[in-house]
């Protein structure tokens, strides 16, 4: 509760400076930069990387994500909670793989992820926030149903 209160207050400052806390745009840009590294000019033949996301390392959203990784590493090391842990069962690997793919695909389809939904669009009373919340509630319900079936089976 304390953590989220602090994050909310900081997010208001961020909103005034550059824009509300968002995750997803940074990931897309990282995807684009990595793809550019491997494909070179080939990438610009795919319209998405020309019209929607032109790879640019100066995109501020990337650094929110890198910051979260950095902050978490520092915090985990300081509290002696950093250690490598692996999913044990094959089923977990499969679920994580499918889950990751669906998350990446869904973010780009919607332009937003869960963070922008709950901490960006909805607090700005953007119509998209309510549309996104209806989607994520239905999705989480279906996901929970599948998760339960997998746990039981």
């Amino acid at each position: 509760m304390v953590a989220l209160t602090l994050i909310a207050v900081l997010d208001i400052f961020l909103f005034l400076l550059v824009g509300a806390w968002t995750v997803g745009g940074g990931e897309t840009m990282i995807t684009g930069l990595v793809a550019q590294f491997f494909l070179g000019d080939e990438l610009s033949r795919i319209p998405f990387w020309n019209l929607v996301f032109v790879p640019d390392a100066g995109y501020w959203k990337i650094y929110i994500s890198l910051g979260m990784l950095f902050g978490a590493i520092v915090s985990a090391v300081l509290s002696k909670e950093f250690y490598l842990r692996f999913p044990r069962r094959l089923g977990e690997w499969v679920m994580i793989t499918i889950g990751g793919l669906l998350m990446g695909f869904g973010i780009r389809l919607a332009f937003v992820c869960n963070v922008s939904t709950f901490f960006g669009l909805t607090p700005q009373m953007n119509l998209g926030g309510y549309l996104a919340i209806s989607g994520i509630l239905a999705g989480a319900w279906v996901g929970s149903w599948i998760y339960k079936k997998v746990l039981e089976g």
Partner: protein
Amino acid sequence: MSVIGECLVAFVFGSIVGLLVQRSRFCNTAALRDAMLFKTYRNTKPLLMGMMILTFGFTLFLTFGEGKAMHFDVGLNQVAGLFVFGIGMVLAGACTVSTWVKAGEGNVGAMWALLFTFIGMFLFSLLWSENFWPPASISMTGEPNLEALQLGFINARTLQDKFGVPAVIFGMVQVFLLGLIYRAIVKKEQAQLLEHDKVAAAHKVEFAEAA
């Protein structure tokens, strides 16, 4: 603000968020999943609290035309996209924030989820390049475009401009509604606790009789 300044501010903000989320173990996925599957609300309450603070703060500044609000047309793609995302986050056991934070704790599963989030995004970029839906922001007008299943751009500020009522008033209505949900959860928790005490007391009697 310069590009470097923006990136620096973003990095500092991200670092503090990473630290706070790692310490508090807040997880947005758990906020929804645990409420649905287990009827527990440890993460749901802070989520609502954060939303209440932000709604008040954002709409207050939007009233005076301050702040950088997200500006793009919305439509059916938000419902569909977050539906797909919602399934994915429960299966992966983490949302975008917790994948980064758990990756920072050395969780290889989270790193794997992140890798496939990137791959999912790349696959989407290929599909988009075939059908060009949802429309790119350069072709957005702010008006409903029903052919593309888009409803245009509406937020607290456009409401203010349209109805002449300050955005923060709309914001306070939303804070009140979120507060009602919060109160309903607290009441439900109290009822659960009462039920738990009752069951525990009943067991105690049974044990006493057996002894």
